[in-house]
């Protein structure tokens, strides 16, 4: 039996913190199945070890959010690629990707890298962006990757909040 998904867990969390900005709970572009498959791919691309990996730090939140914004043009490629991944997972091991053990997951992702190169490259690039990019876009939660790299995570130096558009001519 499946454990409560992170999604339903977080949906509760969002309710509990009503008024906060949109977080991981509600998906903007991906379906539940797509989310689970993509999360399992991200988990292999940047796996957890002594430091958190891409899946646990919101890479899918990042990708989902961009698919509803600047990456809208990649929606179809995701849809098709994730269907293909799910089919491959069933064919190879008889189960959805997120229900496979680590080594089997890895085998599926390696096959995707070979057989669906453009899709794989796209997901890899976006996962890297989510994990190593600014936390403000939904990935790299709690500056996880920057802490791992020993980069000072949130420097105060030079933070000036101003908006010229609101004070034209200043």
């Amino acid at each position: 039996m499946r454990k409560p998904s992170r999604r339903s867990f977080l949906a509760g969390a969002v309710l509990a913190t009503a008024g906060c900005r949109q977080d991981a709970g509600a998906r903007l572009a991906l379906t539940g199945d797509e989310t689970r498959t993509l999360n399992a791919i991200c988990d292999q691309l940047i796996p957890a070890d002594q430091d958190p990996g891409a899946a646990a730090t919101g890479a899918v939140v990042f990708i989902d959010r961009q698919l509803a914004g600047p990456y809208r043009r990649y929606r179809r490629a995701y849809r098709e690629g994730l269907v293909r991944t799910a089919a491959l997972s069933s064919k190879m091991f008889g189960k959805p990707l997120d229900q496979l053990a680590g080594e089997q997951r890895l085998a599926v992702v390696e096959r995707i890298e070979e057989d669906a190169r453009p899709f794989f490259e796209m997901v890899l690039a976006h996962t890297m962006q989510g994990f190593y990019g600014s936390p403000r876009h939904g990935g790299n939660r709690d500056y996880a990757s920057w802490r791992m790299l020993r980069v000072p995570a949130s420097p105060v130096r030079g933070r000036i909040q101003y908006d010229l558009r609101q004070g034209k001519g200043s």
Partner: protein
Amino acid sequence: MALAPVDAVVIGAGAGGGVIAKELACAGLRVVLLERGRWVTAWDDHKDDLRNQRTSVLGAPFGPDDERNPRVAVDRRGRELVVLPSDGAYSNNAACVGSGTVSYGAMAWRYMAQDFRMKSIYGCPPGSTLDDWPITYDDLEPFYEKAEWEMGVSGDVAPDPFHAPRRRGLPMPPLPPNREYEILKPAALRKGWHPFDIPMLRNSVPYNGRGPCMRCRWCVGFACEVNAKNGTQNTVIPTALATGLCELRTDAMAKEIVLDARGHATAVTYYDADDRPQTQPARLVVVSAGAIETARLLLNSKSRLHPHGLGNRYDWVGRNLQGHAYPRAVGLFDFDTYDDVGPGASIAICDFNHGNPGLRGGAMLANEFIRLPIQFTGMTPPDTPRWGRANKDYMRQFYRRSIAVMGPVQEMPLFEARAELDPRIKDFWGIPVARLSGGRHPHSVEVARAVVQKAAEWLQEAGAIRTWTNVPGLDLSGGQHQAGTCRMGNDPKTSVVDRNCRIHEADNIYIADASVHVTNGGFNPALTILANAYRVAAAIVKERHA
């Protein structure tokens, strides 16, 4: 509806246009400065690793916007792609007040004397249109000095024995060294090379009423949060506006330069902030829209005397599109090299700009700006997996233990490397867009391969436990260093503008941007664009008073 006539319309408020507007306005001319972008500040990029001028995967905050400004890129296999400003193949160079000078790393190089005489020194390689400039370094020298002192440059080029003669030093000392500087300097000296502090359009001490660089990690690709980088947007453009004679119109998309029956420019048409067509009459026009957009505007300005586009009688407009071939060597170390002290780039050598045996030209070599984590993901050694456990291990182990040395290799111009009009695709306003095609000359790649070996040697001497190199291939160049599309020359049959950057056969239209560069030096081109704009402005003012 025609607007009230002015003395000059300047198209594009970037490096060249900002200087022209200021010089003309200060000489008493009434100027309209048209800019298709807007004012931007550090507010617009929020130090966002994924949405800046270097990594624009989530958008190009310095413009133009993806929605209204497509281009067509044709790859070397002839495949056509409609590309957006946030795509690499677009060759974007910002559309905002100040253009690239807002978000650049601000290196402030004078080209060397040899860079103006490439054909005489080296001869033209097969297939190239390599030529000398019609002006020499000496013609530009006073204007380099003016740009350095008016806008503000820090650094120390005295230890560089290869620089051309200069009458005056730089107005500001270099920033204190960062850790990479301390590691690389003694290594270069041991090699018998001549390291020095990179000149930068960057305050190291208070200058022009603004404070010094705060040494943050978000530098190249970002607007400066404390205005320590000196671009046209915080120097000459505000000065031009302060005269009361220059009006800056933002969100103004130029469409065409209007000529009368004698081939004399009478006006510029453009779409204003509300997308209404406007006609601005003027006595003279200066185009400074960047190498690709300047060529596009000329080609879109067809008239009876210029049926194939303005200045394009001999089919030279849009040709010779070039930038730099940028090879990179990366070194990994067994000690920390990262100190979180920006801008990162600090030390350079010019030992390999010229005199490389059997090769034409070369490049200045310098350590790279601070790499944000997302940028380091593109810097794995050839045998390290690009994903999975081993990749994560590599990132963790070497992010703070790596140095990159790069150099802008001077390119051999190619007639077939070009920006033309796409016959099909139009922008939001219905104006035909630029279509980019062609490639890079093989000799440019050969030079890059040779020069990058020196970069790797430098890193090895500095103690790198491992080095590797990346060399660009034969794909079309351009990018933020785009140049060459409206060549300056004495012969109207093989150039677009004369030595004063006036279009041949059009007596009141000038170009002041990197379009006019015959070759692009082994250096970042910003200071040369600024200096040449001061020179062109001086020629315009002199002629007007004659």
